[in-house]
């Protein structure tokens, strides 16, 4: 039973939730409404004249090959980032779960990338893979791979995927290791007695039991790849070469602030907003349900 405290004053509850509501209104609702409004407008590059064009911006997007290409690119990028970072994190967590000595150091080291700002992470990888100076480039050259992500679009995509995934490994690692710790030890012992080796144990017991966490992380990682990788891409490739690493969120920036097509850019961000809303609904609907056995 919930115990409720009743206050006689009627303004107190409103006062207590006010900061949260003000922040939400100011930083989420208001810009969202602005973007929605902007997406119905057509402006000239100097902002001197504005015309209300209803859904024209959206219709243009629907017919734009560049935009649809960016969509496909983003889908590939986010699946690759989510797959790579979750795969690595799961691998590390599975190992860390078995480490006995120095597990704290190991864990702390694994969490560090999460504290690195996206642009810095991008710069870091940029230096490593710099076509002329990069150390990784040097080694790749030794095995016969000519690395130049400034010219080669698939190499550029590979690099942004690696950088974006690297930064997210820590976050995923934390969730995976917490999930693994919450599995009763006796289950693992029971399966050891039943004759399962470490790998089989992982596949048949641990992995199914952390599946709610995995699903949660999948959604979080896709959202991350969609929205929070702007800094990394901006630092490494700036969307190039050509448009080969221009994912949706980067295109919003490029079209709006470089191309000065404010209406089209706003329409793109409205599309992104709906994607986020859908992903969030999916997450709430299914994560909650899958948790209980």
């Amino acid at each position, binding site marked *: 039973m919930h115990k409720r405290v009743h206050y006689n004053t009627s303004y107190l509850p409103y006062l207590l939730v006010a900061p949260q509501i003000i922040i939400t209104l100011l930083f989420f609702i208001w810009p969202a409404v602005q973007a929605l409004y902007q997406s119905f407008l057509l402006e000239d590059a100097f902002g001197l004249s504005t015309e209300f064009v209803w859904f024209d911006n959206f219709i243009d997007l629907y017919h734009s090959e560049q935009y649809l290409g960016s969509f496909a690119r983003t889908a590939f990028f986010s699946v690759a980032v989510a797959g790579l970072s979750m795969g690595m994190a799961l691998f590390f967590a599975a190992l860390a779960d078995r480490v006995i000595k120095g597990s704290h150091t190991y864990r702390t080291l694994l969490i560090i990338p999460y504290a690195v700002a996206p642009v810095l992470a991008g710069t870091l990888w940029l230096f490593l893979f710099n076509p002329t100076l990069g150390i990784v480039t040097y080694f790749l050259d030794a095995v016969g791979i000519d690395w130049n992500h400034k010219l080669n679009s698939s190499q550029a995509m590979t690099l942004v995927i690696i950088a974006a995934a690297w930064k997210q490994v820590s976050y995923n690692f934390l969730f995976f290791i917490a999930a693994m710790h919450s599995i009763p030890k*006796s*289950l693992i*012992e*029971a*399966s050891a*007695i*039943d*004759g399962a080796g470490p790998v*089989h144990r992982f596949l048949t017991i641990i992995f199914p039991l952390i599946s709610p966490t995995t699903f949660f992380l999948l959604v979080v990682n896709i959202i991350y790849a969609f929205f929070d990788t702007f800094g990394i891409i901006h630092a490494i490739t700036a969307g190039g070469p050509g448009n080969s690493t221009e994912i949706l969120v980067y295109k919003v920036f490029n079209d709006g602030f470089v191309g000065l097509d404010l209406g089209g850019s706003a329409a793109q961000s409205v599309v992104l907003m709906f994607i986020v809303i859908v992903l969030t609904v999916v997450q709430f609907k299914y994560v909650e349900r899958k948790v209980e056995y």
Partner: protein
Amino acid sequence: MSTINIQQLKKSYQNTQVIHGVDIDINDGEFVVLVGPSGCGKSTLLRMVAGLESITEGEIKIDDTVVNDLEPKDRGIAMVFQNYALYPHMSVYDNMAYGLKLMKLPKDEIEKRVQDVAKLLQIEEYLTRRPSNLSGGQRQRVAMGRAIVRNPKVFLFDEPLSNLDAKLRVQMRMQIKTLQNKLGVTTIYVTHDQVEAMTMADKLVVLKDGIAAQIGTPMEIYDDPKNQFVAGFIGSPSMNFISCEVTDETITIGEQSFPRPASVSQRGTLTMGVRPEHFSTDENNPYSFSGTVQMVEKLGASILLYIHCDSMEQPLVVECENTVAANIGDTFKVHIDDKKMYFFDAKTEQRIY
């Protein structure tokens, strides 16, 4: 069908030693219960037999093979855990078949074995359910089914009944014992409940602080405890301990003196032990005390009286027939049966008479 020999088994974690050299020989088909208070090392001992804890020193042999360095799966054991440790994401059938699949048995063989065991345990109708849809007693049976279906050489039980309610516990206790009898599989069973220990064991091992305080049949241990700890731990309610002074002629308890029993030859301070059920009603018995009734516990079949005597620090617990009328504050006279007195050395706590 197998024997287990445990020799000078020791276990330490970093600097703390938890098991100090235990020897146990277990015969084929025997039901051995490890009993002791929490922290006595009984679960650790079991887990060492299972292979879930490493062995610091000593040897464990199953069927004359040293298993110290064998993986749990290679020891031919099956274990039932306190929290059952059923795989929550698998059906009861898959839980039971998990180990068999790993043995790479043919499918119809697995099917047959699971069905047979399910029939034996009367859980056939739950085979498709998940463990979360089962009651505590049903989960318990599934956990046992998972152990039985593998046809192990040894069963290990780690306090399997402690999560069940009292009534179910008594039922399951009987079922486990009957089943073990029927299957004839050597069993080690860990519990802190001395009633469980007494009722189930062929051989009882009383552990205290990592040492086997006594090993024997339940009745041997009840009738002939080797030390004060075992005497106090086995038997419910616990044995009364009374400090006494023995001289050539007399035995003095508080202010009262009695003739020295012929069997007691040691002089000085001893501890006398009397079980609550061993007080006599014989009015002519010389060993009698008067005291005030502090508390009355009516158990139905019998009544427990807590009697405060001036000569003793602790109240005496006396079990008497349910026809005895006694109320709190009454003066009550009890007689100790002199044939059922135990004497312990006050210092070493070893039983001397």
